[in-house]
């Protein structure tokens, strides 16, 4: 799952060579074996690493404030969005995000960042599900 997502990210960042990912533990946390240095563990950690590799640091935010906000929503993705299967919780989560985004274009305001990419991936399954259930 996470490996497919990271592969998609690589592609959209324009990284040519595909990395190989392994998965760890019952939650199948992605692990990246880097060429120079120790392996990296965790979806958002690896994603931020790829962004730097692609020389697109701006996707991590430009000011201290933006950087902190990007990381906050990355954390939100892996703690709140992932592994949340309780219907009530999902509803609250979508409601909160909706009200947060009411006056914003992207999560940091006006700049597109890694937080948008990963939150989009993460929410994808809920949105599909939501449409599906509404259709019934």
């Amino acid at each position, binding site marked *: 799952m996470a490996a497919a997502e990271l592969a998609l990210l690589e592609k959209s960042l324009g990284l040519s060579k595909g990395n190989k990912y*392994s*998965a*760890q*533990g*019952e*939650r199948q*946390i992605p692990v990246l074996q880097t060429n120079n240095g120790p*392996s*990296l*563990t*965790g*979806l*958002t*950690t690896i994603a*931020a*690493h790829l962004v730097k590799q692609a020389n697109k640091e701006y996707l*991590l935010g430009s000011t*201290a*404030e933006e*950087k*902190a*906000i990007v*990381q*906050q929503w*990355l*954390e*939100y993705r*892996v*703690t709140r969005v992932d592994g949340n299967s309780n219907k009530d919780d999902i509803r*609250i989560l979508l*409601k*909160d995000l909706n*009200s*947060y985004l*009411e006056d914003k274009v992207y999560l940091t305001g006006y700049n597109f960042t890694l937080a948008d990419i990963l939150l989009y991936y993460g929410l994808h399954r809920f949105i599909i599900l939501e449409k599906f259930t509404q259709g019934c």
Partner: protein
Amino acid sequence: MRLFVSEGAPGTLPVLAAAGRAQGRAELLISTVGPEEHVVPFLTRPKVPVLQLDSGNYLFSTSAICRYFFLLSGWEQDDLTNQWLEWEATELQPALSAALYYLVVQGKKGEDVLGPVRRALTHIDHSLSRRSCPFLAGETESLADIVLWGALYPLLQDPAYLPEELGALHSWFQTLSSQEPCQRAAETVLKQQGILALRPYLQKQPQPSLLEGRAVSNEPEEEELVTLSEEEIAMAVTTWEKGLGSLPPLRPKQNPVLPVAGERNVLITSALPYVNNVPHLGNIIGCVLSADVFARYSRLRQWNTLYVCGTDEYGTATETKAMEEGLTPQEICDKYHVIHADIYRWFNISFDIFGRTTTPQQTEITQDIFQRLWNRGFVLQDTVEQLRCERCARFLADRFVEGVCPFCGYEEARGDQCDKCGKLINAIELKKPQCKVCRSCPVVKSSRHLFLDLPKLEDQLEEWLGKTLPGSDWTPNARFIIRSWLRDGLKPRCITRDLKWGTPVPLEGYEDKVFYVWFDATFGYLSITANYTDQWERWWKNPEQVNLYQFMAKDNVPFHGLVFPCSALGAEDNYTLVSHLIATEYLNYEDGKFSKSRGVGVFGDMAQDTGIPADIWRFYLLYIRPEGQDSAFSWTDMLLKNNSELLNNLGNFINRAGMFVSKFFGGSVPKMVLTSDDQRLLAHVTLELQHYHQLLEKVRIRDALRSILTISRHGNQYIQVNEPWKRIKGSEADRQRAGTVTGLAVNIAALLSIMLQPYMPTVSSTISAQLQLPPLACSVLPTDFLCTLPAGHHIGTVSPLFQKLENDQIESLRQRFGGGQMEESLALKAKVFPKPAAVETVTTAGPQQIQELMDEVTKQGNIVRELKAQKADKNQVAAEVAKLLDLKKQLALAEGKPLETPKSKKKK
């Protein structure tokens, strides 16, 4: 910017500790809000701490706030810090909130609290020590350190929850805690109240999700493949080539086994099972089987090993059981000792002796230790008021008295507790007490008793623990239990009882008393050894030369880690004291507990009727050994592990390796020409073998089993990649390659057979026979991977080792043991031991009926309580009480509990 905090919110700690970084760069206002106040407008659920930025944006993640402060100070983000923070949020926090919830909200202690976070703490410790950096992300303190320190501080500030063996974590934590910003943050948040300061906040929080339906995980952590240096590979190859020649000669077997000066002498005991119960799987893995694995391993290392165990036979419980079954205590012991011995024989437990505590040696040794304690003034006398039945001419143990509860007036209160109001009762306070045997009224008589003066021995004990604990392999739970006993202070403990079935007290005025079992049961190890050899003192009075390992479940820790050492130290006779106390947690059965009375769970004598071989039971029990945390026996999981790990992984590899030698090379091991890939594999196997040794030396039995499975996984992969079955049909070079791969694989199989011996002795000897291992290779486990089957060695006939477990087979076993066999055991009771007519009226009661009865009892109880509260008519109340009592009787019968005996009491 404005920071919102709340009294006792743990997130405030790291935030305040990090705030110093932003000093001088921005103005920070701090506001305190209630724990349920909505600070962030777009979040449905309340959240603190929160940082409101001057732009109007909110940071509601603790780590993001800390990160922002660090970013303001000019710090730059890096991968390693990101990784730690992601780990903190996804792994540490869920575990930690569970631990804090248990500790602060539910008031739990010890392993219940430490259990959920242990793996996380170990992870930090290992990372610190592996990188040998003082801080998480390098040489200086940084964001990751502050965030993790702040998260952990509430728990770890109590030394009881900072495991001593995690040295690197220890010093990292101390370094940070002593720094000024951290110190100030801690004072602000905890206000010198310690962990309790968090209570007002945590109480208002929803229960952490980890607690909801938390399944006990039996899954191993993923294995990380390490990178090997050229030197490591070269060394592994050199050692491999030396072959069996590099092994020391086999030690001749001694009889009896005695310690030898200058050698490693290992004395192993397993907690003595209480004679009148049939042990269940939890009892078996808790001590006897665990100790057996270590004893077998120790013998494979050629250490001088003695493994001692036996049945614990004295005490009230035996007397009660004897009365129940209409036998004498001696007859009961004889009967059940054989049952125990048979069970352990079936499980292939390699005792050097399985003895009993009812021997002349036990009397002699116990009386000697007592006499020495008495002479040295470590025994006190005191008078205790007790109930005595004049008709039966004996003092009544709590379980032999019944009467009216002094608190609630319940008619059938037991001598120690009232079933109705649940209050603890001192037997002499019961109104209208009755002897349960003859129904006459006992009288209060004072009886003189002896007490072991533990407070007087406390200093000696502390001194000994101070010398023993550091560097030893005591399990963390054992350390914790002993520490908390010492913290609460020791009290004198009564060591005598008004009973007949026990070791006589050799003191004037105490002729009709015996020693209390907990005082002399642990001397059983000595007396059983004395039954094995008259030179027993060479083991037990030889602390300089003997390493004593004692195995038990955690409820037995105080007797082994505290009471026995106090007695032995006070006796001043140079006794061997425990060097390594190995205590397990508990094993549950499916979703609940093993219960004899409800007929739930698998008991030792039933395991053999399942048709599943003893080695498979051993494997699965060891695979789920409750090491560090409770675990659960599950039929489905057992099927899964048998079919995946044993059949598909281990069995498949060993069988293929052997089959290739037979089929392609006429049963003779082919010549091996190692390529660099082969050498790398060889080094990986060597490394895993060394890991196995490290783990078993620390008695981490469950973890070491994983190493075996890892090696066979490597082996399977190796065969799969090299495809010897194809190459054998190819060119000369291909055929040579097939030979090398087959030869290396069959040597790995040979190594596995020996590594497996402590766990699955029968399977191990089957493999050894199939591969025709030389005798030396079967009895010694080297520390390195050696070529034990050189080219030209002839192997025997190879056949499959394991059988598949089928779903319907397991399903029918689950049904049979999930409470069903109760009918069987009830019928058995009725048949063998004629009982009052009541038992015969029981037809069949399934778990469902029991549940229904329980519900009815609860309902009826409520009716009675309400009537009483309304001060209703006495006759009406009496009628409803009668109904309640009748329901309770039905329930007791349905649960297979005899009516005369109250609920079984806690084990000693």
